[in-house]
């Protein structure tokens, strides 16, 4: 995969594919889940052919989701470890929101907001998976007590709402911070983008001469 000259690779092809599989699963899960969650959304079931199809697909999508999210997790967990910069960054959240990022302390590859998204998802998705399995009538309906299932379905729907809230934030951030989408769609960002949003990450790339996380290990930073 080639990227335009003078750009920095932010997300490798594998990562992007992985991310969008995750994203797609999540969206479908949200649509189907919400259809079951509240009557106002039940019409969404038509997107899946019928209520029965939707009910049948949802858990399988969940299985896909957990597998693909695991891929994302392996790729991202190190860069999402919490550090002192994040505290500083978080303290300046008002400036971030006000688009005055130049006044915000520099951060590494991901900022505290992204890390919250990451860890939030990393926490909730397994919970959704486990509770989802417990309420997966077709295969596990008999496996647990109804009381357990009641707890599970409550947690599942609360978890789902939590995850959706995080996801809304995440998607909004992706749209709001221009260039992010390209980073996830095509993989590259401009040096200015990196400098503006993830200065420490930018500097470490510059220092190491790396063009960013590409699949090609010999690639060099080119201008």
């Amino acid at each position, binding site marked *: 995969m080639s990227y335009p000259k003078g750009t920095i690779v932010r997300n490798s092809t594998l990562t992007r594919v992985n991310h969008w599989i995750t994203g797609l699963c999540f969206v479908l899960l949200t649509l189907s889940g919400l259809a079951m969650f509240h009557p106002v959304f039940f019409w969404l079931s038509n997107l899946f052919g019928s209520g029965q199809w939707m*009910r049948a697909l949802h858990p399988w999508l969940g299985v896909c989701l957990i597998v693909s999210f695991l891929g994302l997790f392996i790729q991202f967990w190190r860069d999402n470890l919490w550090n002192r910069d994040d505290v500083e960054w978080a303290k300046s959240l008002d400036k971030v929101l006000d688009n005055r990022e130049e006044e915000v302390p520099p951060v590494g*590859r991901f900022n505290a907001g992204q890390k919250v998204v990451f860890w939030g998802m990393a926490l909730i998705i397994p919970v959704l998976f486990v509770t989802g399995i417990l309420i997966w009538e077709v295969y596990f309906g008999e496996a647990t007590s109804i009381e357990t299932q*009641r707890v599970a379905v409550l947690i599942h729907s609360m978890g789902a709402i939590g995850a959706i*809230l995080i996801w809304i934030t995440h998607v909004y951030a992706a749209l*709001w911070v221009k*260039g992010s989408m390209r980073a996830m769609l095509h993989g590259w960002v401009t040096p200015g983008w990196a400098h503006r949003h993830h200065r*420490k990450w930018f500097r470490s790339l510059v220092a190491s001469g790396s063009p960013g996380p590409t699949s090609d290990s010999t690639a060099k930073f080119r201008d």
Partner: protein
Amino acid sequence: MADLQSQDYIRRSATNLTPPSARHHELEVAKLIDVSRCIGCKACQSACMEWNNLRPEMEEFQGAYENPHDLNPGTWTLMRFAEYEDEQGNLEWLIRKDGCMHCEDPGCLKACPAPGAIVQYANGIVDFISENCIGCGYCVKGCPFNIPRISAQDHKSYKCTLCSDRVGVGLEPACVKTCPTGAIMFGSKDDMKDWAGERIAELKERGFQNAGLYDPPEVGGTHVMYVLHHADKPSLYSGLPDKPHISALVGAWKGFLKPVALAGLAFAAVGAFVHSIVSGPNETTEADEAHARLEMEKAKRSGGNGAKGEGSATS
């Protein structure tokens, strides 16, 4: 108007719209099961199979007269047998016809996410409308009596219909018609309560001090009621719930969580929208690019690799 019967709905699962109201002149019905008259002959159970064309799987003997061993998609009613010895060592064989209680406030209906998969008619019968059922199993979680069962064949939920098809044309349910001892009675709920009162008085005379009617108020009363000799301890009868109620968990799930969650989601969406209007996009400016270029030049000059900044860029 859909079909005529749908005009009799007073409740419809996963529906916020008020059901039609013109056809409201309907008597509340009830089935009264007088446990003290029941001889456990299972005629009702076979009549249910006959009328509804049900043939559940033939199981094995597992050390009880209960066969099949539990309710299932093809067993809408099941005789349960409990051998009970009181403190004095007197043996009683408490035999109870298990099946849907047709709750006034049905937990199944409350839990059901599919519009119109569960309905309640004006006469009180709670019915599953299979074509609307998506097989999620929420009714199972919603029911305080552990009644509905999901079929592994068609993934629809099944339970006693109180023979709504028969009752709708003025017949009594099949099990009622069949019961040889008159242990199952059917009629208006008021009549059934009156009759139960007589039965209870008689049982008290016979020394069953705690005889009483099982019409649990926690679920708003039921349209299937029991006359019990030990109404103080319903659980003696193969675990009939002492105080059946829609689980608090289900209450929370289907109650406050919904509006709160919807509000939360709406708030997030609106919040994002407002932010985008107020703050606008966060764009990378030419100045950012210039800064970046500057730093890259600097690094080149200082001789490439080595000086690592904070933050890692491994991948």
